[in-house]
């Protein structure tokens, strides 16, 4: 595709439920990043993949959050036992390599009731 795509665009769930958020990076981009953006704030880093492996997961807030990228392309961010504080926009970005420009998708707006 022409850019980074994310699905779903919006997700409403109940406290305690499990959610999966999907990211399709720009074709050929080896690096993939997940960020979280709360209302009125800048994006905050969650996790970075180089290829299939998570090279840096230092931004994941706790062990309820997990992400995979099994074939080095599409990535899924998984959140277990969602809490109301998880409500935010989850952004995915990709780049052609480290230290290269990161291009962002439109985000998934997650609302936990």
């Amino acid at each position: 595709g022409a850019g980074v795509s994310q699905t779903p665009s919006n997700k409403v769930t109940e406290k305690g439920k499990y959610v999966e958020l999907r990211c399709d990076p720009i074709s050929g981009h080896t690096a993939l990043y997940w960020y979280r953006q709360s209302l009125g704030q800048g994006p905050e880093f969650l996790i970075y993949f180089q290829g299939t492996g998570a090279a840096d997961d230092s931004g994941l807030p706790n062990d309820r959050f997990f992400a995979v990228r099994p074939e080095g392309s599409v990535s899924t961010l998984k959140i277990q036992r969602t809490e109301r504080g998880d409500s935010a926009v989850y952004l995915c970005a990709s780049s052609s390599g480290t230290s290269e420009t990161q291009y962002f998708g439109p985000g998934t707006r997650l609302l936990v009731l």
Partner: protein
Amino acid sequence: GESVGLHLPTLSVQEGDNSIINCAYSNSASDYFIWYKQESGKGPQFIIDIRSNMDKRQGQRVTVLLNKTVKHLSLQIAATQPGDSAVYFCAENNAGTALIFGKGTTLSVSS
């Protein structure tokens, strides 16, 4: 044109004016800096970037200035248009992984 020396959360300008948005970054070891534009309900859109071996870079209607001595970054937009209205974020990068975003500035352009 309108300019601010320190970071302000909002900037209002008239169409046709030049806008200057400022940003202070945190890590003196950061070597790559990017400006993003974010419109309501959308993801951040790349505008322009600059590496630490440069102090100025120009794009179409935009210029980024980098002052490493005081860890300051600015974005200049020439002949600001209503379509430039958005939130602007600076971001810094060290060792090529996570971007660290600054506080955004909301630019409002009136015609």
